[in-house]
């Protein structure tokens, strides 16, 4: 239980390394979780080889949603887009290093949902993207 607010998460929440907005960018997507008002926007730059060269997130919400966005961007910079497309729920949970109940899971997975809708070039984000 106490793990939920372990240092790593609080640190990424309070001192995010990847908060911001890239302009110009190659990929941009945003979505929110209406239940709690969490909002995440992700912008990425991708090079000619299809590799993420830079990434930023912006938004507001609980520590879990914001920290997971920061950790997620950190984990994909330098990776090929094809690899980003394969990211799953478990990858995010591994980044956070915690167990989450169903309500907080939505907070943790919002950034992955936004990221995948963006890299797939979808019009809207759906929960199927993060199963």
């Amino acid at each position, binding site marked *: 239980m106490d793990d939920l*607010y372990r240092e790593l998460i609080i640190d990424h929440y309070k001192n995010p390394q990847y908060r911001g907005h890239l302009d110009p960018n190659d990929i941009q997507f945003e979505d929110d979780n209406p*239940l*709690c008002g*969490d909002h995440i926007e992700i912008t990425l730059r991708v090079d000619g080889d299809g590799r993420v060269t830079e990434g930023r997130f912006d938004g507001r919400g609980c520590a879990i949603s914001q920290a997971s966005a920061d950790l997620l961007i950190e984990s994909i910079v330098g990776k090929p887009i094809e690899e980003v497309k394969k990211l799953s729920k478990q990858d995010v949970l591994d980044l956070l290093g915690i167990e989450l109940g169903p309500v907080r899971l939505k907070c943790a997975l919002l950034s992955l949902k936004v990221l995948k809708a963006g890299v797939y070039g979808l019009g809207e984000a759906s929960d199927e993207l993060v199963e």
Partner: protein
Amino acid sequence: MTLSLDVPKIRADFPILRREVRPGVPLVYLDSTATTQKPTVVIEAMDAFYRNNNANIHRGVHTLAEESTAMYEQARAAVAKFVNSPGVEQIIFTRNATESINLVAYSWGRANLKAGDRIVLTEMEHHSNLIPWQILAAERNVELDFIPVTDDGLLDLDAYRSLLEWTPKLVAFSGMSNVLGTINPVAEIVRLAHQAGALTLVDGAQLVPHQPVDVQALDVDFLAFSAHKMLGPSGIGALYGKAELLETMPPFMGGGEMIKTVHLRSFTPNDLPHKFEAGTPAIAEAVGFGAAIAYLTEVGMEAVAAHEQELIAYTLERLEEIPNVKVFGPSAEKKGGVAAFTLDGIHPHDAAQILDRYGIAVRAGHHCAQPLHQKFGIPATTRASFYIYNVKEEVDKLVDGIYEVKKVFG
């Protein structure tokens, strides 16, 4: 007559209050606005019903069926007496306050409203007293108007008077806000509505559990409430309506029990209240509802209201001590036992989750009142709410817990 509750004695009646959330961490239950805990008498009444009396009601002639029917109808009589309904048949059992409001929207609304008619609601409504009217409005081209909420969480009655100049057909409003805690001036709102020729529906989901409610004194046309917010089980609620209205309203749902005679292509509806109770109802839950009402009657609703007043006044005082805490809603004397607040820079989900470490159960979110939160420009609040079993020591634990939350994010 004393107005103070014997809270230690009351607490002993609620077995769940003895549990530990985790070993060594006792439960501090501050989420009664969502649902209240149940006293032993309610749990045992339902258990005893299933062990001794259980049968379907109203048509059977065997002993168990007669006993079950009598118990179900006794519960209805208890509910009627509790809100001072002039007739027992004016109490319709539903699933909850939400279904009660939907019953009025579907039955009365569709029979009586036409394009261009207006309904007045308020900005502080729970979704249960908003969506049924939105659905009706879309279907019938009915216009919805909203009494604004002031910055200090009260209804703007001057604006209400202006809205009444458009001669609405119905004014539907919450008796007590589940977020702000505001206790609205029900009698005044009803009187003004009637002067303008409008009927009134009070969402009493929070009001009825927290203070004495007399439908005749308030002169309200419809009153909706839920058992589970007043010590009873979930799955049962009630609608009170004025007899002349209920009698002329068409049935809401079709099925068994709501009919008098049935042919292949037609039916004659049953008399009140059965006309609105299609299918086998929640019988054991009705018995539990009756037991909850007996318990509250014994405690005394004046004393319930006074106890909550004392707790909320203390809570607001303690919360105000904490830097960067903002409590929403009016001052203590204008509200019931609900304190919704924000902590600067800390999301309510995080606050609630950390409070749970200390066994403190509070709610985080928009509490089914999204438009109200939009009005105040916040996505969510943390809400602590109280009932007859809560004590000041629990408020102190909440305050200590909030300091712990601030420490985590410090």
